[in-house]
């Protein structure tokens, strides 16, 4: 087991140890057996109080599944989850969720995550009722306050989901979660599908709320620009495994893992006429988690891959004080500083 | 995109689809030598299993009997038998067979075959055995010689001779080859034939309740000299709906309808050239049965009240357009044993009300909803019920009509408790003897059969009927039946409405049609096709 990369010295409030998740898989009656998919394979990480950890990867890499396991809504197949040092894994879904009330989750598609039949006021009230927080008057006040805090006002109480814009829906979704007074919030692609101008305000709000309420964020995203802007640390996932984890500034400035390099090179950046080095690093399409290549899952696409890469799955190893990478050749690969 | 082109394509597709329906004009299809009858068919065609009006029609053509009813009023005539004798005690009956009669397969009809036929009826034990089972044991049917059949009855049974035509003579050689276990070939004969009748079944074309094709049997013992124009092929194609059946007649696709034509259709036929109505008085009494064991019909005044509440004249004149004869007693008025002096009940709501009040005073629950069961397929039973219902409503009686089926009703009449309050049906001629009517309807020993479903009980009547049954001479029996009938009418156990005038639509190319109340004129061998 690795030590788990920590943000320097701060106490960890959430820790995952060797998490593994198998999804699906069943023997169909008279049909071919469908093997389960290893959506998360041996992931360990810690979340320090007050930090924002970015979880980055392409679609299908298992980042959302990992988030849902940490939340307790998806059961892990193996491994442990510790909240405040207490083991909160290994129970059934309802109990797991209950014991992790301090963690809340904001869905990617905020509009679809709200019941279209309910008014915004009702939706916000419901969370409080479920958790038995306060009487009617107190709840009313809290909701009004929270609406203000996310940049809406009390008049939104009476409105319905279909009457709100994408940015407003994100705010409502945040408000609903924050009313439950979580300490850790998992934000799943909080700005995907939003326009640039709206995205900026939402990101701003997320940052403001964190400061104001002392939150800890796990931010799941594929948008490197966003992650770089607001995360303290960043973990790069590829096909169910974390391949690199470290402080955002270090990872973006000096990526160690070939995949990280590829990703950074591929992301379009707002630099006119800028040509990233390393476009040639990418080979082929990302493989499916159903057909994992042996050894390092990235080696078939890796420009630095060699036959030895197929032999064993590389483990995370320290590549700096708080920087870890899972590549057996990271030292050998010439570190090209990536300029942004 | 070019919408017009799409519409055009679609229009073409539509037209093609409609063109599948060929709107060719209807050709008349009267074929020389083919007679198409619209009569109903029995549920299967084994004459020893089924015994009802449709079976009579079939078996009269496909089979022969020892004696047979001919004419109207029906007279018993020797058929396969030349003559018979009966012992003075009425127990031993001997029938002398005519020589030279042959089955369809060419074999001779012998006394042994007749014995087999009767034994089979008794062994199968279904409807046709009803008249024989109480008085005849299988081993007492014997053939002392090749042309004599002897029956020894357990006790004297006067209607025995009248019942003889019930039994069709079958060919044991064919049947025995098809027996399954001890089923007496029932499964096989249900859709095949083993007879000697004037017409021979083509089993390949037989479809239960749908179609029977009968070919003329040239070797029939009666010979065809008397009728050279007899139909070569008789097709029986039942049609469920009367109006459809009549239309078939009008269009010429059917030569004969059934004989129960509703009067509304009669006018239509009469108005049309090329077809006409064959009108015959029958022996078929339309009866509304009351359950005499169930309140309020256990009260004679309640029964009389209902008897006075039925609008006999209105029903006969308006609904039946006069094509029926008022028949105020259970016996058909054209049969011996019918008391000419019996008056019956008339339609008089005032009297009905009086009887009703009297019954009420005696504690009869006149006010309860009373159910009348009709046969859903027979519109006239419905009309009669509705007519009675609307009249009863005027004197404050609530009659509810329940649509029911023959199968259900006859099941339910097995017990007094489950027998309907009232139900509607005809009592047809199965054998021409008062026993067919009053005997089986009002002798309490028959309780549990549908015919006795009024659960009538009168010791005096029982005695008269039983005596008449065991007396051989008709002259002695007649007064007994007349007396019993008078008593029954006085007790008003049921409501008797009319004796049927049978109305059959016939195309003009059909001549020589002979009606007999037994089988409703279904014997085709007399018909001459023009």
């Amino acid at each position, binding site marked *: 087991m690795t030590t788990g990369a920590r943000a320097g010295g701060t106490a960890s409030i959430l820790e995952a140890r060797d998490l593994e998740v198998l999804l699906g898989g069943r023997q169909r009656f008279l049909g071919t057996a469908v093997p389960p998919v290893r959506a998360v394979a041996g992931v360990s990480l810690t979340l320090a109080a007050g930090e924002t950890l970015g979880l980055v990867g*392409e679609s299908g890499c298992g980042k959302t599944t990992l988030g849902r396991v940490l939340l307790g809504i998806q059961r892990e197949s193996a491994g442990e989850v510790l909240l405040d040092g207490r083991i909160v894994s290994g129970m059934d879904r309802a109990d797991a969720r209950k014991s992790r009330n301090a963690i809340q989750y904001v869905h990617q598609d905020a509009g679809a995550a709200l019941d279209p039949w309910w008014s915004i006021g009702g939706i916000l009230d419901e969370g409080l009722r479920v958790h038995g927080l306060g009487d009617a008057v107190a709840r009313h006040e809290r909701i009004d306050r929270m609406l203000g805090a996310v940049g809406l006002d009390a008049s939104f109480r009476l409105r319905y989901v279909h009457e709100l814009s994408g940015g407003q829906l994100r705010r409502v979704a945040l408000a609903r979660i924050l009313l439950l007074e979580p300490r850790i919030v998992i934000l799943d692609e909080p700005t995907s599908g939003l326009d640039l101008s709206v995205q900026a305000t939402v990101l701003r709000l997320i940052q403001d709320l964190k400061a104001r309420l002392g939150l800890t964020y796990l931010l799941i995203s594929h948008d490197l620009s966003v992650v770089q802007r607001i995360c303290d640390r960043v973990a790069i996932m590829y096909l169910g495994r974390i391949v690199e984890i470290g402080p955002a500034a270090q990872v973006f400035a000096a990526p160690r893992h070939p995949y990280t390099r590829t990703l950074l090179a591929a992301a379009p*950046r707002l630099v*006119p006429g800028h040509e990233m080095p390393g476009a040639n690093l990418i080979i082929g399409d990302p493989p499916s988690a159903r057909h994992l290549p042996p050894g390092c899952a990235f080696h078939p696409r890796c420009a630095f891959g060699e036959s030895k890469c197929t032999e064993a799955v590389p483990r995370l190893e320290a590549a700096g004080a708080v920087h870890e990478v899972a590549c057996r050749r990271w030292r050998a690969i010439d570190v090209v500083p990536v300029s942004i | 995109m070019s919408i017009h082109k799409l519409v055009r394509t679609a229009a073409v597709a539509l037209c093609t689809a409609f063109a599948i329906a060929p709107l060719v004009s209807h050709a008349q299809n009267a074929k020389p030598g083919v007679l198409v009858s619209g009569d109903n068919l029995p549920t299967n065609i084994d004459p020893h299993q089924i015994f009802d009006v449709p079976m009579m029609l079939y078996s009269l053509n496909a089979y022969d009997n020892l004696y047979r009813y001919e004419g109207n009023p029906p007279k018993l005539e020797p058929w396969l038998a030349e003559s018979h004798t009966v012992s003075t005690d009425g127990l031993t009956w001997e029938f002398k067979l005519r020589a030279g009669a042959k089955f369809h397969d060419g074999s001779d009809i012998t006394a042994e075959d007749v014995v087999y036929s009767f034994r089979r009826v008794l062994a199968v034990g279904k409807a046709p055995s009803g008249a024989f089972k109480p008085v005849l044991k299988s081993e007492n049917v014997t053939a002392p010689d090749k042309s004599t059949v002897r029956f020894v009855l357990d006790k004297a049974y006067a209607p025995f001779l009248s019942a003889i035509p019930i039994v069709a003579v079958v060919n044991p050689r064919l049947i025995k080859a098809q027996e399954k276990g001890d089923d007496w070939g029932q499964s096989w004969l249900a859709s095949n034939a083993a007879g000697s009748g004037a017409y021979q079944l083509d089993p390949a074309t037989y479809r239960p309740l749908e179609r029977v094709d009968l070919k003329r049997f040239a070797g029939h013992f009666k010979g065809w000299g008397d009728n050279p124009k007899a139909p070569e092929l008789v097709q029986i194609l039942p049609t469920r709906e009367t109006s459809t059946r009549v239309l078939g007649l009008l269009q010429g696709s059917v030569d004969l309808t059934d004989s129960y034509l509703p009067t509304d259709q009669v006018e239509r036929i009469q108005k049309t050239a090329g077809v006409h109505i064959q009108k015959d008085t029958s022996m078929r009494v339309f009866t509304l049965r009351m359950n005499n064991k169930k309140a309020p019909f256990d009260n004679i005044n309640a029964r009389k009240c209902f008897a006075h509440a039925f609008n006999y004249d209105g029903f006969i004149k308006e609904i039946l357009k006069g094509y029926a004869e008022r028949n105020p007693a259970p016996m058909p008025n054209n049969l011996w044993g019918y008391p000419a002096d019996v008056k019956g009940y008339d339609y008089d709501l005032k009297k009905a009300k009086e009887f009703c009040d009297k019954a009420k005073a005696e504690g009869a629950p006149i006010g309860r909803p009373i159910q009348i069961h009709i046969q859903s397929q027979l519109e006239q039973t419905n009309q009669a019920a509705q007519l009675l219902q609307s009249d009863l409503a005027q004197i404050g009686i609530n009659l509810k009509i329940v649509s029911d089926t023959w199968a259900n009703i006859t099941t339910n009449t097995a017990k007094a408790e489950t027998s309907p309050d009232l139900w509607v049906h005809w009592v047809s001629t199965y054998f021409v003897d008062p026993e067919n009517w009053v005997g089986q309807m009002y002798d309490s020993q028959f309780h549990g059969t549908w015919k006795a479903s009024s659960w009538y009980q009168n010791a005096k009547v029982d005695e008269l009927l039983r005596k008449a049954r065991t007396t051989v001479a008709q002259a002695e029996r007649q007064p007994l039946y007349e007396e019993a009938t008078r008593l029954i009418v006085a007790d008003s156990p049921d409501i008797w409405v009319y004796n049927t005038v049978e109305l059959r639509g016939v195309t003009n190319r059909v001549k020589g049609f002979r009606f007999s109340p037994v089988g409703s004129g279904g014997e085709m061998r007399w018909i001459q096709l023009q």
Partner: protein
Amino acid sequence: MSEVQKANADEPLLEVRNLRLSVRTDEGKAQILDHVALTLPRGRILGVVGESGCGKSTLARAILGIVPKAATVESGEIRLEGRNLLALSDRTMTREIRGRRIGFIPQDPYLALNPVFKIGAQLLPLLTWHAPELKTAADRRARLTNLLRRVQIPEPEAVLERYPHQFSGGQRQRLMIAAALAANPSLVIADEPTTALDVTTQKQILGLLKELTVEFNLSMLFVTHDFGVVAELCDEITVMYAGQTVEAGQTAKVLTAPQHPYTTALLACHPDRSDALTGIPGLVPSPLQAPPGCRFAPRCGAVADVCSRRSPKLVGIAGDHFVSCRLADETRSATP
């Protein structure tokens, strides 16, 4: 090259002028496009950028002549190689323009291929209709397989017999690119072709598009909301806001020195640029009730009275940089 073509060589391949388009809705008329203008020189890649609902996709459809039934082009001109497309019948558009002169690359390759037809059955008919020079089925097959090979699809022969769902997203987009090029068009319109793809795949596709433009002597209209992609791919850029063209020019110039307040504000929202993440106050106006005058006025930091009274015109400043804003008008009038 013929004389005529030579003479026209300097003329832009595609020119849209004054295009106005409205859509009838249950709630009234929506002015989706209002005086849109753009110019696409030959051999260049033009990025049309804007936030959702700004009308950039409608513009692409208007050029192709496939606007929804409820939409009406009210005025304007769309000139492709000198022909006004708006004057052509739907039939002519189908026969001579779409698929033949203009190739189209759709937004979502997952949804844009007909799922119940084999690739060959979907794409080969295109050549029957639009590449009449290919006389035989074998020729058409050869052309298609060559193209597929060029867009780096392995086993192109076998691919024709496969169904769309048997391909990955990146491969599907390659198929779409091959289809767009099948009939040798002069213009390719790409409507957010990489939005549905992962960044690594996006990178490959963008690279491929760039190569092909040169190789096939194409001009490309590239519709996107992603400034990063524009920065990487496009030579020229046209920024749209609420159905209007607000700024146009060479990519480098516009991105480094935006002249329109909207462009400026929007670029400031980009996480790569902004530290403050301020956003733009207010909401995009509804096309049902477009504000009078400049449509950006209600959200603009540099708004003046005149903005809500007069619609600004797209005027050229500094060579081929065009801006539609009162400020530009003033600059121009201030420096005669």
